[in-house]
């Protein structure tokens, strides 16, 4: 038997799906905590949630949704062998991710400016439920932002590999997995956005 380099695209994708599953459970733990405290302090949560900037939140939601589309398009492009288009679509996705992070920076910056950040004096004087809401807000969006950064790194790696033709129209599972990860980041935001911004 001639020994060839082992390659199993299906297995690789299966591994990625399992990994995504663990990520969902990771955030699932936070959703449970959110649910418990929301039911314990419904009024405080209502007041605190109304202080979030729904406008920036909406913009960011749109940004992420569109970026999910562009990353999916880049996979189709590479399947069709259009390397240049794939590269520019990945680049656009990365730019969208940057826009998201910049918005986040301004949103968090404004909160911090008002003295609402974990460990601040003002936070400890707030009502218990409000304190928990803002803590969860920082923790959940912070963890999500961390995932955005990881996603950006993966996309940058994918970009370089497409450029070097390491990812090409016969071997593109890495880009697919990167795309899956990006969709995950998007999906989690889809849940965070209504829970934190809209329900109030």
């Amino acid at each position, binding site marked *: *038997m001639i*020994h060839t380099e*082992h390659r*199993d695209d*299906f*297995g*690789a994708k*299966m*591994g990625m799906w*399992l*990994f995504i*599953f*663990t*990520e969902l*459970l*990771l*955030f*699932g*733990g*936070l959703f*449970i*905590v959110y649910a*418990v*405290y929301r039911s*314990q*302090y419904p009024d405080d949560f209502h007041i605190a949630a109304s202080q979030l900037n729904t406008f920036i939140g909406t913009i960011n939601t749109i940004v992420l949704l569109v970026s999910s589309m562009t990353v999916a398009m880049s996979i189709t492009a590479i399947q069709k062998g259009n390397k240049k288009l794939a590269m520019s679509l990945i680049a656009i996705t990365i730019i969208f991710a940057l826009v998201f992070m910049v918005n986040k920076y301004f949103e968090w910056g404004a909160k911090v400016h008002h003295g609402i950040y*974990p*460990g601040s004096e003002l936070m*400890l004087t707030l009502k*218990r*439920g409000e*304190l*928990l809401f803002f*803590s969860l807000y920082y*923790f959940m969006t912070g*963890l999500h932002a961390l995932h955005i950064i990881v996603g950006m790194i993966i996309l940058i790696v994918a970009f370089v590999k497409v450029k070097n033709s390491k990812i090409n129209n016969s071997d593109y599972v890495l880009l697919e997995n990167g795309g899956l990860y990006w969709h995950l980041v998007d999906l989690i935001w889809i849940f965070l956005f209504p829970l934190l911004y809209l329900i109030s």
Partner: protein
Amino acid sequence: MELAQPGQDFLSAQSYNAVFTVHGVIMIFLVVIPGLAAVFGNLFMPIMIGARDVSFPKLNLFSFYIYMFGAVLAVISLFIGKGAPDTGWTFYAPYSTQSGSNVIAAVLAAFVLGFSSILTGLNFIVTIHRLRAPGMTWFKMPLFPWSLYATAWIQLLATPIVGITLLMLVAERLFKIGFFDPNLGGDPILFQHLFWIYSHPAVYVMILPAMGVITEIIPTFAKRKVFGYKAIALSSVAIAAVGYLVWGHHMYTAGMSGTARWFFSFLTFIVAVPSAIKVFNWISTMYKGSISLEPPFYFAMAFIFNFMIGGLTGLILGSLATDIHVHDTAFVVAHFHYIIFGGMGFAFLAALHYWFPKIYGRMYNHKMANWSCVTIFVGFTVLYFPQFIVGLQGMPRRYFDYLPQFQTGHFISAIGAFILGIGFVLVFMNLVRSAKTGKIAESNPWGGLTLEWQIASPPTVENFDEIPVITEGPYEYK
């Protein structure tokens, strides 16, 4: 040791707390959770399913590196800052949010080790799905990989929960967030729930591979087809599935509704069923077998014996009324160590003696191995059995001092600990010496039928020159 005599002997109360915490963290997160699955799983699972390696070898290496990183963190937590953590390995809030000791390092170590565990689980699942040799259907797969498959799912599904919980704990300590501190509006019981959602299944992460090893050893030494192959395979999956839902039995006394307690108790009893199925099947496999008494078989017997005691005392703890009496006593300590040490520990030794000639290509001294097995078994029993009794008499666990009436039990335990230590020295000496200078072993010293015995010892880098084609089940002894 400290408990051999009443009063303060060697350790202060604070260092006693630190010692049992670090013992717990290191043993649980560093030794018994990854022990069997990562050591023997990575080595033999691919061989037993007829693969050259796991699906993601690089990921495997990466998980090893983060495991080492976590291990270093855990050890560092002992020495830096304001002293070793003193919360117990469960890191219960709110004390863990307030203790001045080094909780963050220990918690982060547990988090990192958990991540490593997830990656290993992921790797195993994909490997077992994708890389089984041609012809090896699910029900022609040996039972050790089956148990690893069930284990891997638990690792994958449960570990993220404890990961996020521990992160919340760290955030709480750093920023005074108050997820779990009642003074800040949080709920410490929530921490217990989130913690046990992982940490109870983690017990099955420890014991399932152990059961898998025993299921390999018994047919090999009884030269009989394993009794109830499908029942054993599926009971592993059943334990994984039900075991995921029994975490509440750690919290009967913590404050839960009567319905919830009833429910958790019921599920706890349910999970005993597949475990019992396995025990009965092992014994039935030996019935009318041609048993050859070799060291791995002795270890396997000790496993079954200890596991039965551990399992049955588990039911005492699992039922609501009796648990109230023995909750947080030395009885729990004894039960736990019968399962983890008497079960997983003995299975680890059994696996070590079973696969040793395959790993090193050399054979150890059988007589010495038998003696070390006896010594460890005696030491173990003398150490932990009295704990059941003092536990029933009301000795609380994690206390650094006690009333005079508990002295006899503790003194006997201390003697057992010494015997146990001698036993381990024997094992260690025997195996280390044999790895270098032992007799060269043939490739199949026990006459096993699973794939790992059909290749050279030690295995070559790629395991198989040619991937085998499987036509029959793994235990077709004639």
